[in-house]
């Protein structure tokens, strides 16, 4: 089989963004050959559905589905896990999605200073004109919509109250991950697995992107084991030197 082609965003001194990063990390961990195609000046991304994997005649989006596809191709990073560890993986991914994702979306797409000075110009420069005028705003509205619909509602009436709550949740989630990781190199010992790919996908953007408003980054930097975890993966698997990138 020819190496599947992964289309994704390239960004900020990171190999890619949140979800694409999860897929790329998993591919590195499992040894799956991927040809990575970074999006530049694209007409193809009006839905912002990245990453997309194309293998022969199948097209797959969403990280969970791509990972399943790679597993079926015998690129499995979880061979050595026990059944219980497999269950833990699913549970921690749910924790990330429920508790960390809303704050991550907020930092990128809703916090006005971050959005105007970093996220919007960056995305606009990767998308062909005139889509570049429209797509970033659409992605921002979708993020806001998701946060309000899932985390809003009584008794949190104003956006400020919802924000306070999602950042509280996110910081608690980071603390839980830090406690769970402890002093070991990866979440299940010495070799990286699916869970490590997901955690890395969520943490690396928080850790590396230089935003004007950095609530989460400040909190993450107080948890040395999680920072070490990100640095290790970036240096060992992506051959990046550890420096703050924009």
């Amino acid at each position, binding site marked *: 089989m020819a190496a599947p082609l992964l289309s994704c965003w390239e960004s900020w001194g990171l190999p890619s963004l949140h979800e694409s990063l999860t897929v790329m990390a998993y591919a590195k961990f499992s040894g799956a050959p991927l040809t990575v195609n970074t999006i530049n000046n694209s007409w193809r991304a009006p839905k912002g559905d990245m990453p997309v994997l194309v293998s022969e005649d199948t097209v797959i989006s969403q990280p969970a589905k791509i990972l399943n596809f790679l597993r079926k191709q015998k690129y499995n990073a979880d061979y050595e896990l026990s059944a*219980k560890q497999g269950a*833990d993986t699913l549970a921690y991914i749910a924790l990330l999605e*429920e508790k960390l994702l809303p704050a991550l979306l907020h930092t990128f797409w809703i916090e006005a200073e971050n959005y105007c000075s970093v996220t919007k110009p960056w995305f606009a420069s990767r998308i062909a004109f005139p889509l570049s005028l429209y797509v970033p705003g659409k992605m921002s509205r979708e993020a806001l919509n998701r946060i309000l619909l899932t985390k809003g509602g009584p008794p949190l009436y104003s956006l400020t109250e919802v924000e306070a709550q999602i950042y509280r949740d996110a910081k608690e989630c980071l603390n839980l991950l830090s406690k769970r990781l402890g002093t070991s190199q990866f979440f299940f010992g010495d070799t990286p697995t699916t869970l490590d790919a997901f955690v890395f996908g969520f943490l690396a953007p928080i850790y590396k992107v230089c935003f004007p408003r950095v609530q989460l980054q400040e909190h993450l930097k107080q948890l040395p084991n999680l920072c070490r975890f990100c640095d290790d993966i970036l240096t060992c698997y992506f051959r990046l030197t550890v420096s703050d990138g924009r």
Partner: protein
Amino acid sequence: AEPWPENAALYQQLKDEQILLSDNASSLAVQAFLQMCNLPVRVICRANAEYMSPSGKVPFIHVGNQVVSELGPIVQFVKAKGHSLSDGLDEVQKAEMKAYMELVNNMLLTAELYLQWCDDVTVEEITHPRYGSPYPWPLNRILSYQKQWEVRRKMKAIGWAGKTLEQVLEDVDQCCHALSQRLGTQPYFFNKPTELDALVFGHLFTILTTQLITDELSEKVKNYSNLTAFCRRIEQQYFGGQEKESPTTAAPPAKKKSLLR
């Protein structure tokens, strides 16, 4: 620990003709949690429970002069009063417990909401008649559609709107598989009962005992014998005394009949 008032009450919708799968599961989870803490509450059924709740969600408890809704906040509230089930766990176990609780919320609860508000047959046959039951026409229809619209918007925002029923059932199976593997042969998820056990019991027991259009959902749970045994054990231990049949009267016989068309 502060004393627990004798007149503490838990509010939910009417058991026989109104309450839906997801609300019943959440209510049962809170009841199980309070039973495990040995804090008695009287269960009060009100047709307008949803509108009485401070968060718009059931169940909620009324203790002294305070009103608290949903399992998470109730666990916090009870903890502030000096009762906790998870104090004995170490930090890693606490992280694990929270992760599994999010798994149940993220997959089982969302699947229940999907089934009752996005599966067209279930919506027509069960959800609309039950949800609107306390109100006269046309209010019953209006309120049902309003709620349906709200839930569907949420499903769309989290990317569940495009899923088929088969995919949702597949997710439920994956979640049950994980819970079953984690539980193994132990009586509880950790050495002693915690809020995770209450939450899992609330959802699985409700799924097992509620008659829907088809048995597909309960069949998924029944494939895991340790999970069904877990439900039976908690039912007997914490709800056995009150009534012979089951926890709260919200459970099998009455409910089955009422949901059978």
